[in-house]
C-alpha cells in the first residue's frame, strides 16, 4: 500500500508548485520580520529578561503581575479615552468629505486645508502643541488678550487637560487623511445613484444617509478599524513629544508603558507580556467592529 500525495504526477501538478515557489520569498519575509519577532515576544512574555543577561523562564508571573499593576490599568484607561476620538474621526470627516464632494463654495480650498495636517510629521504636530498649549503659549496668551483670564490654564500640567490636548491632536492630525479616504470612496460610486435619489426628492442628508453611507461601508470599516488601532498602538510619538507621559504618569498609554518597561526599567519580559495583551485587545476590537458593521457577513460590498 502506498500513500498518494499527489506530487510528481505530471505537468499539471508541477504547475501547482509554481505558486508557492513564487510566494516563498514573501513568506520568508513574513516569517523573518513578523512571525519570528512575534514568536519571540510571546516566548519572552513568560520570562524575566533584562536584555543584558539570558532570559529566565518564570511561567505566567508577568501576566499575574499585570492584573495587579495600577499603571497598566491607567495606561489602558487612557487608550480607551483616546479611542473616544474614533466615532468623531469616523463621522466628522465623512460630513466634510460629503460637503467637498457636493462642491460647496470654496471646496478646493477646504480640500487642501483639511489635508495639510496629514502631511505634517507627528513630531512636528507634537512640538507645535507644546508651544501652543504651554503656560505662556498661544492659547493662554489669546485668553489673556481677550480678557478671558479665567480660562487660562496649565494645559499640559494637569492630567485631564493633557489627555484632552492629545485627543485634540489625534483628531486634527488624522482628519485630512480620513476625508481623503471618504472622497476616494465617493468618487468610485456610480454618480447616477445620488442623482436618482435627488430626482426622487431626497434632500442632502437623505442622500448621504441612504446612498453614500451604505455605499461607503467598506471605507467606513477601514476608517473605523485603522483609527481604533491608532488609538491603541500608534500614540507613542504624540505622548513622547507632547507630555513624555506626564504630568506624573497621567498620560501614559499602553505603548508608552511598554517602551518604558522594556528600555527604561529593563523589564523586557514584562513589556513583552503587555505587548501580547495589547495585541489581543486590538484584535478583539477589530473583529468586533467588523462584525458590527457587516453583521457577520464577509465578502465585497
Amino acid at each position: 500500500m502506498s500513500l498518494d500525495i499527489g506530487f510528481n504526477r505530471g505537468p499539471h501538478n508541477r504547475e501547482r508548485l509554481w505558486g508557492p515557489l513564487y510566494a516563498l520569498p514573501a513568506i520568508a519575509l513574513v516569517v523573518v520580520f513578523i512571525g519570528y519577532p512575534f514568536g519571540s515576544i510571546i516566548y519572552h512574555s513568560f520570562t524575566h529578561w533584562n536584555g543584558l543577561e539570558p532570559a529566565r523562564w518564570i511561567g505566567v508571573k508577568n501576566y499575574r503581575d499585570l492584573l495587579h499593576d495600577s499603571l497598566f490599568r491607567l495606561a489602558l484607561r487612557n487608550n480607551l479615552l483616546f479611542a473616544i476620538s474614533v466615532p468623531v474621526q469616523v463621522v466628522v470627516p465623512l460630513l466634510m468629505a460629503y460637503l467637498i464632494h457636493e462642491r460647496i463654495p470654496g471646496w478646493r480650498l477646504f480640500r487642501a486645508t483639511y489635508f495639510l495636517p496629514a502631511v505634517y510629521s507627528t513630531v512636528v504636530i507634537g512640538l507645535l502643541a507644546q508651544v501652543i498649549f504651554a503656560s505662556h503659549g498661544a492659547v493662554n496668551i489669546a485668553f489673556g488678550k481677550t480678557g478671558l483670564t479665567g480660562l487660562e490654564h496649565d494645559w499640559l500640567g494637569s492630567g485631564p487637560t493633557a489627555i484632552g490636548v492629545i485627543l485634540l491632536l489625534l483628531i486634527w492630525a488624522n482628519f485630512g487623511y480620513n476625508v481623503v479616504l471618504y472622497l476616494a470612496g465617493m468618487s468610485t460610486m456610480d454618480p447616477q445613484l445620488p442623482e436618482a435619489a435627488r430626482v426622487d426628492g431626497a434632500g442632502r442628508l437623505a442622500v448621504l444617509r441612504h446612498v453614500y453611507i451604505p455605499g461607503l461601508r467598506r471605507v467606513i470599516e477601514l476608517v473605523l478599524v485603522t483609527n481604533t488601532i491608532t488609538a491603541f498602538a500608534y500614540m507613542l510619538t504624540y505622548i513622547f513629544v507632547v507630555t513624555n507621559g506626564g504630568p506624573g504618569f497621567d498620560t501614559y498609554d499602553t505603548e508608552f508603558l511598554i517602551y518604558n518597561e522594556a528600555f527604561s526599567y529593563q523589564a523586557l519580559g514584562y513589556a513583552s507580556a503587555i505587548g501580547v495583551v495589547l495585541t489581543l485587545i486590538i484584535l478583539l476590537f477589530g473583529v468586533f467592529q467588523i462584525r458590527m458593521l457587516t453583521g457577520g457577513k464577509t465578502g465585497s460590498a
Partner: protein
Amino acid sequence: MRSQRKRWIVLLAVVAASLSLAGTATTASGRGQGQTLQVWLGGILTTSTSGTPFRKWVDTQDKLFEKQNPGVNVQITLLPADNGQLAAKVEAAFTAHSVPDVMMLYAGAYTTAYQPGLMQLNKYIDATPGFYKSFVPMTWNFACTNFDCKNGKGYIMGVPFDLGGFVMFYNKALFKKAGLTHPASTFSDLYKQCAVIKGKGILPMIYGDRDGYATSNMLTSDLVSYFRPGDLQRLLAQKLHFNSPAFISSLNAIRGLKTHGCINSDASSFGQLNSDNKFAAGAAAMVEGQPQNLPQFVGALGSKVGVWPMPVSGHGPWAHKQAGNAIDNWVIPNGAKNPTLAWKYIQLATSKRMQLLEVPELGSPPSNLAAANSVKDPYVRYFARLTAQAQIPELDQAVPNQVALVLYRYLNQAFSGALSPSSAMSHVDQTMAQANH
C-alpha cells in the same frame, strides 16, 4: 515546456540578483577606511550641542585624540538629556548588541544598572601604574559594584570624570535690588526672603520640575539635614522607607516654595533646562543647579552669578553638610569593537591636561587628583569644597536605576499637589520593593 524554462530562468535571475545585491552590501560594509571610535555621550555631556562650552571641551578632546592616534576618526553621538530616554537608548543598544566603543554614563546606579553589559576595567587600570591613585579617592566608589571599589580591588566598571552636588545659584544684582546679600540657609528663612524679593517685582526662584528633577535635587540636598549615619544604607535595604518622616517633612518644606510664592506658577510643567535659560536671562533671582550650569550662567550674567549652599529644613547631625558624589563615569561596553582605543580615549579624557580644561568649559570639579589640586577658578574651588563635605550621595544616583526614574515622576506629582507626599512616596516604596525582589 518552453514556458516552464522561462519560469526557471526568471526564478534563477531573481535568486542571482538577490545574491549579488547581498554580496554588494557585504563588500560595501566590509570596506574600511581607518578606524572609527564610536563615542556616546550621556551624563552631563548630553547637552554638548554645537556652540556650547561643553561641545568645545568634547571637540578639543576628540581633536587631540585623533592627533595622538593617526587614522582614527572619533564619531560622537549625543544621548538624550531626559534620563528615561537616555536609559532607553542605552538599554536598547545592549539588547541589540549594537554598542559603541566608549560611553559616558551618569555615575552610581546609572552605571551599575548595566554591569552585565559593561567591561570590567580592572585589567586596564592594573596595567596602568598609578592610575587608580591619580583620582580623588571618593570618586571611584560610584563606578564599582555595591558602590565599593575596595581600594582598587573591587569590580570596577567605570572611570570617574567629575564631582558634583547641588547648589543654589543666585543673581547678585537682583538680590542687591531687594536689599539682600545671599540666599537663606533654611527653608523658613527662604520663604521670608521670597516675600521681600517678590515685593520688588522680581521672581524669587525659577523652578523647572516638569520631569521631577528640580524636586529630586532639592530633596537630596535637604535629606542630608534629616539623615543620620547609616540611613542611606537602611534606605537601600528597605529598612528605611521613602514614606517616612524625613522624606515627608522635606517634601512639605519644598512644597512650601509654591505656597509662599517663591517660584513660577507653572513650575510643575516647566522644563529644568528652560528654567536654567530663564535664570541666565536674568528673569529670576535664584535657581537650583549643579556645577555644570556655571559656564552658561557666567557666560550670560558674568560676575552677577553667586553660589550658595541649598536650603535645608531638618536639624539632624549633618544639617549643614552636603549631598554629593562623582557625577559621571566613562565606560567601555562588552562587545566594543575597539576596547584598547576606548581605554586610550578614557585615559586622555581623565588626564590632568583635559581635566584642567574641563574646569572652565564644564564647571565641574575634576576627578583627577592633580587637576583638582591645581584648580584656580574660585567657583570650582568652592564646589570642590562643598563636595568634599558630602555625607550622602545624590539620591537618584544611589537607588536602583528604575526606582530613580519612577521617583522623579512621583516627586513631580507630590510637588504639584496631584498626590500627597505620603501617597507619592508609598508608590516609590512599592517600586523599590519590586526592584529589590
